[in-house]
């Protein structure tokens, strides 16, 4: 029988395990039981000793390493980490989970990429562990966990408020009736059998709800609880002196994550940073740069433009690579952020009607927060990670929050996010540019007006040097956004 702690490290059973064996002073001690569990894991690769965790801390680090490799490494090999899916690892894994959760909670903010990665990792590990179980084991353990997580018989959809808010689940994915989420088969049949014709109600239950929805809710609830736990640790760590071992693990996580993200994103060619090409901006961004009317200003500048310009300039491939990056990974001294990105955002803010900072000077703090540097006047490395570097809102969200800015053109039809538009259009423009250049070279090699071509490039590219950014800011009072085009 599989233990609930194998899937839910925050269950009562798991907490009991931690109470019994989770002595912080021993987390670096070599643990022969752990080594044995790893050694005897089915399919475990034994070719490299480095694959074998020998103590709790190494197991905790292996958990992180597994997820990063699985997400990013083309040569990822399941067999290197097969022990993570062996149920015999449960009692060690639970301790490793708490070491990670506490180390992350102590060192990083709950909005940090480290916390986010840890929560995602937990969701993923549960999914993969479920795959290793038989159907009856899966069903049994899932029901037990749900019974523990949801105390009442009928769970109201409002009970999942946090999960819905974080978009881990969408409301329309659930079967609702009179405010309750229908999960139980008997309940389903009682409520809907009469309404179903030409189909077997039991089959309908299996298809529409059955195991997948229950498992989905279980996984998302554990992810939410993991997030809440990290947050709680973070709050506690302000009051209680953390254990030095946990601080050490926090450092290790930070190092591993930075090195790995740099390695994988650079090898994909994603983290280079590109000069902005305003010709490739989608209509909503062009309109925002022109200045926005009262009512839409705050959302347009703070939520849309800030994230769009920062990612377009620093890391336009974020959606393709699907990694958690910090601005300092690409712009270590924040020179690009301070000298290129912020002046463009501030200029657009001042072009609003009335100028945004005249009414809401505190929005500068919000802009800094959306770049991942917490609520401060300007981005500074020491504050990085206090908040999340927000990715640009999707087209769907723009339609709801900023309908006045959504004036789709042909390219918009193919994409779901302004940043994807920018990537696609930049590529098209580059291709056209290359072809044009090639044909003009073929026609008349001697008649290339180099100075004009340079001037064209200056017009196309927004890349003010530190000096130019000052000039741009001053000119903004007399220019409208079309000067960017």
């Amino acid at each position, binding site marked *: 029988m599989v233990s609930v702690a194998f899937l839910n490290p925050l269950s009562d059973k798991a907490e009991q395990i931690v109470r019994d064996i989770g002595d912080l002073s021993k987390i670096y001690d070599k643990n022969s039981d752990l080594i044995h569990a790893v050694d005897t894991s089915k399919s475990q690769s034994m070719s490299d000793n480095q694959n074998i965790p020998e103590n709790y801390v190494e197991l905790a680090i292996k958990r992180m390493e597994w997820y990063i490799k699985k997400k990013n490494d083309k040569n990822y090999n399941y067999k290197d980490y097969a022990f993570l899916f062996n149920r015999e690892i449960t009692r060690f894994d639970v301790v490793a989970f708490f070491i990670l959760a506490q180390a992350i909670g102590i060192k990083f903010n709950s909005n940090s990429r480290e916390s986010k990665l840890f929560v995602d990792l937990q969701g993923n590990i549960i999914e993969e562990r479920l795959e290793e179980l038989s159907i009856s084991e899966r069903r049994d353990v899932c029901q037990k966990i749900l019974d523990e997580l949801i105390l009442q018989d009928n769970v109201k959809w409002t009970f999942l408020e946090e999960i819905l808010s974080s978009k881990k689940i*969408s409301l329309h994915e659930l*079967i609702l*009736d*009179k405010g*309750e989420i229908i999960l139980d088969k008997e309940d389903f049949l009682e*409520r809907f059998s009469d309404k179903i014709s030409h189909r077997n109600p039991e089959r309908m239950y299996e298809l529409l709800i059955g195991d997948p929805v229950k498992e989905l809710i279980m996984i998302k609830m554990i992810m939410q609880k993991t997030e809440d736990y990290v947050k709680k640790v973070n709050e506690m760590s302000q009051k209680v002196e953390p254990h030095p071992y946990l601080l050490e693990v926090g450092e290790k996580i930070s190092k591993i994550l930075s090195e790995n993200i740099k390695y994988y994103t650079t090898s994909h060619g994603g983290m280079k940073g590109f000069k902005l090409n305003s010709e490739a901006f989608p209509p909503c961004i062009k309109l925002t740069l022109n200045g926005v009317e009262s009512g839409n200003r705050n959302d347009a500048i703070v939520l849309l433009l800030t994230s769009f310009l920062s990612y377009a300039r620093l890391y336009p491939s974020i959606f393709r690579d699907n990694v958690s990056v910090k601005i300092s990974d690409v712009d270590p001294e924040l020179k690009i952020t301070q000298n290129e990105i912020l002046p463009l955002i501030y200029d657009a803010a001042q072009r609003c009607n009335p100028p945004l900072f005249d009414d809401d000077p505190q929005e500068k703090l919000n802009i800094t927060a959306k770049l991942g540097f917490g609520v401060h006047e300007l981005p500074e490395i020491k504050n990085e990670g206090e908040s999340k570097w927000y990715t640009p809102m999707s087209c769907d969200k723009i339609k*709801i929050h900023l309908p006045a800015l959504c004036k789709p053109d042909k390219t918009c039809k193919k994409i779901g996010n302004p940043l994807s538009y920018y990537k696609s259009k930049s590529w098209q423009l580059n291709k056209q540019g290359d072809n044009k250049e090639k044909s003009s070279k073929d026609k008349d090699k001697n008649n290339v007006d180099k100075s004009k071509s340079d001037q064209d490039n200056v017009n196309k590219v927004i890349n003010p040097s530190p000096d130019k950014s000052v000039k741009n800011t001053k000119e903004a009072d007399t220019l409208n956004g079309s000067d960017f085009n």
Partner: protein
Amino acid sequence: MNEPATLQERRRYYREEWNVKKLPDFIKEGMEQREFGFDHLGKGPNDRYRIFRSLEYLKRFMRYKSPFAAYCSVAFYDKPFKRADWIKSELIFDVDAKDIPIRTCMCDNVCEVCLGEAKEIVSGLIDTLKGDLGLKDIHVIYSGRGYHLRVLDETVMKMDSDIRAQILKYLVGSEVPRSEYGTEGEKYQLEHFSIPFGYPKVFTQRFKYAVLHLTPNIEMENISPALFKKVLKNRTYLLTDEWGLFRKNIGPINYKKLVKEIGALNMGLVDAKVSIDLKRILRLPTSLHSKVSMKCMEVQNIEKFDPFKEAVPKFVYERDD
């Protein structure tokens, strides 16, 4: 619709017809925690951050100022005079007859037909709010040009904009339900119309309403004129719920396109910005919508409500034509 109310008419209304005691209870209770706003010149609310500690103060203010329009916040604050220390907000759905994406009347402003259609939409939303989401304490307000649905159920009043957006999408049927379901490694096709409960049912109802109300002037981006004609020709099947025939006749690929377009169109049934805004001010029930000379009022029975009988202030009947 009526002509705008003059200052004299506004004064008459607030001094002779309006009664502060007739404010709905949900406004009167906790009134001191709401922000009030006023439009004195007919150019939009320019007098904001006002608070009223008692009905008597509000009564005096309205009588003395006879504003062009009066509003109060959907939010409750500890410091409403600063719009600070937010406590909670009503959940709002604003159906403006003028802005419904599919209107059979094609009038320039609003008329009996589109107001009737707005009412039909509102009734559908209420059914889903109660039936699927199990919400209570729902108030319908005739705004003067449409309807406001104001939900004061405590279970939703602290919810953030993201969940409100999800509720909105669920209610209007803007997300296309999946049609592929799997169990134990096998996949099955199940179209929304063959699932008579939950969100698929909501989507089916909204889809049916939209298709049955389509008019030739409606433009849908990815629907060719030929397909549009086909839809109009075959939509009578929906009256008798012969969905299979409807889908077959327009073709499964075309059906997929249509479903997506109608989902997008449905997003316009309700003003989304109002629903997600936690600090919105909304027209005060019992106040005068001076632009159209109609009363903004709570509706007790939406089925029987006739704005042209119940929401017309006395001064309109006494106007010289």
